[in-house]
């Protein structure tokens, strides 16, 4: 076990004089000392002392219209920047509204710190006004949470929260702050508090013998596949991954969360695998004799039927979370540690092998079953809109999504070439993630081109955040692929429920008017011929812009591995075959 370095970086200042500060000031000063320059938060009764200290703090403070939105903003800010996202909410309803956002960040291993106000310590447990058992409610959806009961612990607990959130397998951490702690005075010496986490150990360096075994397995493999997840992005290991694939001559398939970690325009890319992954990735995994998983967790949307997943393959699993290893799939060679550190070691041992036969086979699958759509369709196909966006942005935009069909098409028809380019709720599948996430990503990099490819009903869930984007002059672009349906639900109802579209069709507002009423630019596109121009107009906007594309209503995402089927039992291949 390697000793972890302390987040409390600056050395003690010997000449620092002690000063008396209220807890709220301690919090703000500690955030600044930790390098926080952006905070998302919504005020309320018991966080008034804290918000008062933000009145003149050198921090870019973004107030969402709902705490859930703020939580997604902080989450996407973290995903886009690699820094810790910070969200503040009041007690009771404010804290409760964070739950969806925290669970989203938890499932996708996003470093976040949530600070919540709490009623006065002596009122806790008395069903006080706006009291909720915040630590109790959020325990299953955070990596760690705690409540500060003594002002003496405050600074240390804030520092611990940042340390836990940002190290190992990252995740959201919540610190609950009773209002009396915010106002209590404490003598601050100027020396950062020391962390006290005897139970928190992280293994970053992989076991040397395990790495040797992995390298040997790779060198001996005839039909290897690198199966890469979001861990590579979190670990900033894309360069190492690319070197490994090149030096070892290995094809690479990505999970939804892994998109961006490997340049998909390269020959070795098999694109995404899984339920709506590429046929060539799924066939390759099923035929592989070695699966090298890096920073992925064998999610059911990736594996399909577990008992028939990669049946011929020996499995190497590189992950920082020991609990991910052999959780779903038996692993032959586990390597616990940080992806970047391990890949760096692995590269030294992996030799170039001629795999002409294997790549030829993959090329056949690629040729036979590419992602495709009907170019002759009269109406606007959602895939066509994304394809056009891809061309018009030269594949360089940061893409954010909601959840559903549009998300899968965004994963299939936009190809990603850099880490943190694709931001989406993978694990939890949170509808409504798109708009607030676009705001968070744009705030992380104001110069970036951020496009939210959204569904109409995903957008409906959080569209009240549009004024937040307007208020901060964020040039985000929202493309609503509007089919009137909850598209993915409708697809399942079509395929598995005899086209009984139960409660999956709702009346939508006129999004262009909604956008305009909220101070953004709004457009509606009804004709296919207008799509390219509309995208150009959208890209030229410097204000938030919403484009409502009225797309063909009953288009399906193909291929599809039905739930419980093996990866090679894909539906829709006949449709893809007809299209090329």
């Amino acid at each position: 076990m390697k000793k972890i370095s302390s987040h409390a970086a600056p050395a003690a200042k010997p000449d620092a004089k002690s000063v008396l500060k209220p807890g709220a000031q301690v919090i703000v000063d500690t955030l600044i000392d930790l390098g926080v320059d952006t905070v998302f938060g919504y005020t309320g009764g018991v966080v008034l002392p804290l918000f008062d200290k933000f009145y003149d703090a050198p921090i870019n403070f973004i107030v969402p219209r709902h705490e859930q939105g703020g939580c997604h903003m902080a989450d996407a800010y973290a995903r886009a920047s690699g820094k810790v996202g910070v969200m503040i909410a009041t007690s009771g309803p404010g804290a409760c509204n964070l739950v969806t956002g925290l669970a989203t960040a938890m499932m996708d291993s996003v470093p976040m710190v949530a600070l919540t106000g709490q009623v006065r310590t002596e009122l806790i447990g008395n069903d006080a006004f706006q009291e909720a058992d915040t630590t109790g409610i959020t325990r299953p959806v955070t990596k760690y949470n705690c409540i500060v009961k003594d002002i003496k612990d405050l600074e240390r607990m804030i520092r611990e929260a940042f340390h836990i959130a940002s190290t190992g397998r990252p995740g959201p951490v919540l610190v609950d702050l009773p209002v009396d702690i915010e106002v209590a005075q404490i003598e601050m010496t100027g020396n950062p508090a020391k962390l006290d986490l005897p139970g928190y150990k992280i293994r970053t360096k992989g076991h040397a013998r395990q790495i040797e075994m992995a390298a040997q397995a790779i060198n001996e493999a005839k039909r290897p596949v690198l199966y890469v997840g979001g861990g590579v992005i979190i670990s900033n290991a894309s360069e190492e991954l690319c070197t490994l694939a090149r030096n070892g001559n290995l094809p690479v398939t990505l999970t939804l969360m892994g998109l961006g970690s490997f340049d998909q325009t390269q020959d070795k890319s098999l694109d995404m695998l899984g339920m709506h992954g590429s046929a060539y990735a799924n066939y390759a995994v099923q035929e592989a004799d070695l699966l090298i998983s890096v920073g992925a967790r064998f999610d059911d949307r990736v594996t399909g039927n577990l008992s028939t997943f990669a049946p011929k393959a020996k499995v190497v699993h590189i992950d920082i979370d020991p609990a991910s290893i052999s959780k779903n799939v038996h692993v032959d060679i586990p390597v616990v540690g940080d992806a970047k550190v391990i890949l760096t070691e692995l590269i030294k041992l992996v030799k170039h092998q001629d795999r002409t036969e294997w790549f030829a086979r993959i090329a056949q699958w690629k040729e036979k079953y590419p992602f495709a759509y009907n170019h002759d369709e009269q109406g606007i196909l959602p895939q066509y809109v994304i394809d056009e966006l891809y061309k018009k942005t030269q594949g360089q935009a940061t893409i954010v999504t909601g959840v559903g069909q549009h998300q899968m098409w965004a994963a299939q028809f936009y190809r990603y070439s850099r880490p943190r380019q694709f931001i989406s709720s993978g694990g939890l599948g949170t509808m409504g993630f798109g708009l607030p996430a676009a705001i968070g990503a744009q705030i992380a990099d104001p110069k970036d081109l951020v496009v939210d490819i959204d569904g109409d009903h995903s957008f409906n869930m959080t569209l009240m955040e549009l004024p937040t984007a307007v208020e901060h002059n964020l040039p985000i672009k929202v493309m609503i692929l509007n089919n009137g349906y909850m598209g993915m639900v409708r697809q399942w109802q079509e395929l598995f429920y005899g086209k009984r579209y139960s409660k999956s069709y709702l009346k939508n507002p006129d999004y262009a008017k909604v956008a305009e009423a909220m101070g953004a630019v709004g457009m509606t596109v009804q004709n296919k011929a207008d799509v390219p121009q509309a995208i150009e107009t959208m890209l030229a906007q410097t204000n938030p812009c919403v484009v409502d594309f009225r797309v063909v209503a009953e288009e399906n995402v193909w291929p599809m591995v039905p739930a419980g089927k093996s990866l090679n039992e894909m539906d829709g291949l006949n449709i893809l075959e007809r299209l090329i």
Partner: protein
Amino acid sequence: MKHIINALVENKPGVLAHVAGMFAARSFNIDSLVVGRTEDPKLSRMTIVVIGDDRVVEQVRKQLAKIVPVVKVQDYAGQPVVARDLMLISVAAPPEKRPEIFSLIEMFRGRVVDIGQKSIMIEVSGPESKIEGFIDVCRPYGIKSLARTGTIAMPRRNKAE
């Protein structure tokens, strides 16, 4: 198969809830869970008896270790341990039956801790099988009520020591 898992945890509020919540959330079955203080006031020891195959128990162990205030996790499966339960049992004991009950208590090395007019309370400790055995022999007399701790355990010292 039953596994005895031992977790050294920080003595902080919320740790028990975290551990119990994790078991519930991941559908792991707890046979018993005992928490108590240790020689170090900052640490508590949890002894958890889990039923499951090796794969499940490995996940239990890893998921426990992942909880931040959990300092150390050990699975005692396959190593010699001393494992004990403690029971208080109140048995219907009319005067004429008392001699035979007393002899049973002696056989099980229990102790009478309270005597009433119609019943007696007995304290028994030992391996789970012994506790179960004592309950069985008490049943014909009529068990008024009983309370048991779960299992606590410690590994035996190495022979080399």
